[in-house]
């Protein structure tokens, strides 16, 4: 399909603009992180760093609490990913493969609850976590994150599960495999792309999550990157090279992960939306 009356020149221009809008900021952050203190504040910005230096990274890891934030974020993100994976695989398998009686209603309720705004929940969630002694713990953050990732991931897995032919189950049953073995040995291995997709989504969600992490964590030694990095920005506001080094390290893990499974992720999203 050709766009409405787009001739070649405007189209090339549009491609160029889109490339600059998307890639430009990422390029700029990256090179800023490698510029020296003098170069980064030059009145005429340099498009390629002349003083290629690692000093911003050295300072980031030695003089700031960045390594602690990085560790906290990694723990929370990995924990969220593992728990999300267990919950959403189970739910998706039960709802969309075994089709438990009443499953349609459960699926709808789970999806609907995903649309409830986080701001409505933040006050009561705080009291609940306090009652459970989960304020200022990794477990508390993971629990809350999972409630927001698992429903979407269950829905994402739906498309992947529907694409595994059901004949396989019957063949396995004829060979004498029970439902548990069928799930573990026949269907799960075929869901690898779906599992990768869900892992990336939940990892990135937890890595990025700001609202809950800003209130449910109190001590600075437990803070995750979104809060830690913005604190560093406030503290070192004139040292943009350092701030950019921190930004680069914050966005790198999500981009690297996405580079591995991005295709599956986009495919799963489209399949989920169009099926």
């Amino acid at each position, binding site marked *: 399909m050709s766009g409405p009356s787009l001739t070649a020149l405007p189209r090339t221009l549009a491609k160029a603009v889109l490339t600059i809008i998307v890639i430009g*900021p990422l390029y700029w952050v990256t090179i800023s992180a490698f510029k020296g203190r003098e170069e980064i504040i030059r009145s005429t910005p340099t498009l390629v760093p002349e003083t290629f230096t690692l000093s911003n990274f050295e300072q980031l890891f030695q003089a700031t609490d960045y390594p602690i934030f990085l560790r906290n974020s990694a723990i929370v993100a990995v924990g969220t990913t593992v728990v999300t994976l267990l919950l959403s695989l189970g739910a998706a398998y*039960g709802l969309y493969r075994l089709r*438990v009686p009443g499953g349609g209603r459960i699926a709808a309720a789970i999806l609907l609850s995903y649309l*409830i705004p986080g701001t409505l929940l933040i006050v009561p969630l705080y009291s609940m976590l306090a009652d459970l002694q989960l304020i200022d713990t990794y477990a508390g953050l993971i629990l809350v994150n999972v*409630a927001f990732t698992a429903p979407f991931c269950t829905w994402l897995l739906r498309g992947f599960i529907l694409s595994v032919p059901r004949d396989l189950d019957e063949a396995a049953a004829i060979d004498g495999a029970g439902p548990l073995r069928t799930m573990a040995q026949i269907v799960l291995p075929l869901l690898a792309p779906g599992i990768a997709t869900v892992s990336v989504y939940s990892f990135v969600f937890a890595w990025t999550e700001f609202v809950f992490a800003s209130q449910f964590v109190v001590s600075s030694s437990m803070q995750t990157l979104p809060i830690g990095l913005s604190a560093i920005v406030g503290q070192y506001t004139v040292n943009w090279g350092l701030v950019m080094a921190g930004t680069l390290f914050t966005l790198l893990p*999500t981009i690297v992960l996405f580079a591995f499974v991005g295709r599956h992720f986009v495919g799963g999203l489209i399949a989920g939306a169009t099926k």
Partner: protein
Amino acid sequence: MAATINRLAATVSRRRQAPSRRRSGREALLGYALVTPIVVVMLLVIALPVVSAVTTSMQDQRVIGSPSSFVGFATYLDVLSDRAFWAALGRSGIWLIANMVVQAVLGFSTALLLQRSGWWSRTARTWVVLPWVVPTVAVAVMWQWMLNTNYGIVYKMLDAVGIDIGSPFGNPAVALGAVILVNSWHWFPLSAVVIYGALATVPTEVIEAAKVDGAGAWRTFTSITLPLIQPILFALGLVGSLWSFNILDSIYLITAGGPAGATTTMPVYVYDTAFSAFRSSRAAAASVLTVAVLVVLALVFARLSRPKEEV
């Protein structure tokens, strides 16, 4: 159509399973065992807090968890007579509509470009999602850096052609618009990818047939493509606006609701009321009212733009 086929397929496969009764009993048992954990988590983290938000909204609680008593709808009346509440609701309206328009335009044009052949479109299908993958805090910091009045590249480039944008996040007149643009940069890839996927579901034969019948590109687009992808656009519009309305992190990390409240949308208002002003009940009442508004808007939206059944 598709729904009917799915239902038929479901019935057929259920029939095929019928022979072994014991097996289906064991399957159901396993099924419930698998579904239980997510249901428990959702009850604990979503359903219970929703109930507790409603009860808190009818009390006069200040710091979260502090002793409080039942005051009925008094807190609601307080909130409704607070001018800041209405101002925040208005800003949320602007936020919602502006984000939707900017992202729809960007998303649609991007999707149309992604659909073409050639190496640019092929590679772009992967890298165009990058802004969405970048953590919000990084998005916030990177744009503050690029728009910095002293050293920012975007500021300097505009300055070089004679446009002085000043300090967009510090100027109450333009701060909301600036944050909307940054937020749209972060989120437009989602619409682009979903619309691209939707366009790919339109059979090429239908498009070709329209061309043979002499329909121009624009005509084909409006009377063939759009109606065919309308169900997906409807879902994207509904879910996308709910997500967009509830965004707090993009705003908080860039301006924290300032300057002078210029970017205090509803979620920021609720957050500040709970955690800066320490008025939990007020925050709860405000969010219950907001959810009510959202439900009404969603129903109106569904009424106006739901795709016709079984075309």
